């Protein structure tokens, strides 16, 4: 037995509240990030990711007290992403209690940000989020920004290798073709990137059932799988997801 594959629920946060309402039984406040994170911890989540979808910098600061409060009550790794533009944004989130900070479009605008943040704080806390979709690039997938609408000059595999070389400790790989479809991960994309880089890959985008999570690991070779809606609406618990993975011979923390 060895390292377990991780299951990571992802919460969208705006103005200090969880949006896209989470629907747990007997939750006092469906938008309270602290209570929701605690529920996921109790279900056996291996990490929790907060994605700040705030529109402005002022609104974004509202996540800091939340991170503080969650990290005082939930003792599993916390990743925070959204709006991270400079090294000082990374520092602020880490100081509030985040264990890892995820960088997306700012890394594309200025790849040195990845090297600098990793140099200051260590590769273990720098995640680079890559939004990929099928495109006429070398590998067949390109890197996109603006929710998958705007293409960049980067091929997804080359960009993954570039950020790993610059010191990203982990890559959060989202298929924008699959995101929101509930048709499952883009397994070809996941596997291609997972085999091309030496750092762990989190698969994201498209999970609609528990078999999709299993396929992400078995077929896609992902080190971790991230999902939002199948957990938020109470369809499945993290525990059920882990039992399904365990039944298929995938090592998990039960």
């Amino acid at each position, binding site marked *: 037995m060895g390292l377990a594959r991780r299951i990571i629920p992802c919460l969208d946060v705006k103005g200090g509240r969880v949006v896209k309402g989470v629907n747990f039984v007997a939750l006092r406040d469906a938008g309270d990030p602290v209570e929701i994170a605690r529920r996921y911890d109790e279900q056996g989540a291996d990490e929790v990711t907060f994605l700040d979808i705030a529109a402005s910098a002022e609104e974004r600061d509202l996540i800091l007290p939340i991170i503080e409060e969650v990290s*005082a009550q939930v003792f599993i*790794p916390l990743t925070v992403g959204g709006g991270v533009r400079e090294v000082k944004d990374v520092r602020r989130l880490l100081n509030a209690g985040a264990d890892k900070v995820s960088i997306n479009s700012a890394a594309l605008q200025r790849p040195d940000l990845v090297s600098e943040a990793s140099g200051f704080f260590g590769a*273990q806390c720098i995640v680079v989020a890559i939004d990929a979709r099928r495109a006429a690039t070398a590998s067949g997938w390109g890197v996109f920004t603006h929710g998958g609408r705007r293409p960049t000059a980067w091929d997804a595999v080359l960009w993954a290798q570039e950020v790993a070389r610059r010191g990203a400790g982990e890559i959060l790989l989202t298929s924008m073709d699959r995101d929101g479809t509930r048709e499952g991960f883009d397994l070809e994309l996941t596997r291609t990137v997972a085999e091309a880089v030496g750092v*762990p890959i989190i698969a994201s985008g498209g999970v609609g059932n528990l078999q999709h999570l299993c396929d992400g690991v078995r077929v896609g070779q992902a080190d971790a799988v991230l999902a939002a809606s199948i957990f938020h609406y109470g369809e499945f618990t993290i525990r059920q997801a882990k039992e399904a993975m365990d039944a298929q011979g995938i090592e998990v923390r039960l």
Partner: protein
Amino acid sequence: MRIAVVDYGMGNLRSVARALNRVAPEAEVEVTDCPERLRAAHRIVFPGQGALPDCMRRLHERHLLEVVQELMRTRPFLGICLGLQVLFDRSEEGDVAGLGLLAGKVCRFPEDRFGPRGERLKVPHMGWNEVHATREHSLWRGLAPDSRFYFVHSYYVQELNEAECAATTTYGFPFTSAVIRDNLCAVQFHPEKSAAAGLTLLSNFVHWTP
């Protein structure tokens, strides 16, 4: 009881302090780099993330080398992650000397290794892995055998004294994931991020009488 968390500017120190507050609500937990405050504490926790050369440099810059080495010999002392690696003679990382309290050297996990199921073993070793206690100790009290803890590291210790190894973990091959000698213990994983198992271990440390 006063517990001091050594602040040398690296790693998620507040997470460690928060977890200690949780398991020892009666204790006074302080994150500090002041030698007097450190000496006034009954127990010392030495966390750390990042690179060993930076760790040694910052300990030096903050004039903490002497006090930390003293407390490692005189207080119940818990090193976490980099706080384990720093105890040894030498590290491949930047080819620097560690504190040399324990014999052994710190090496990087080789790249391009594959596990028993053909899976590529990524570096950093990141996630929940099993910790197999190799000797009985009150640090392991109340923990199921081979409990999982959260790891995130690219370096591990080898060529250490077997008598000082307290647990192993397998990542392609077994490596030492905990060491104990007298009043000194150190773990490669992060108990402060390891849910119930981690809190149990921290509670055991807080109640440990070497």
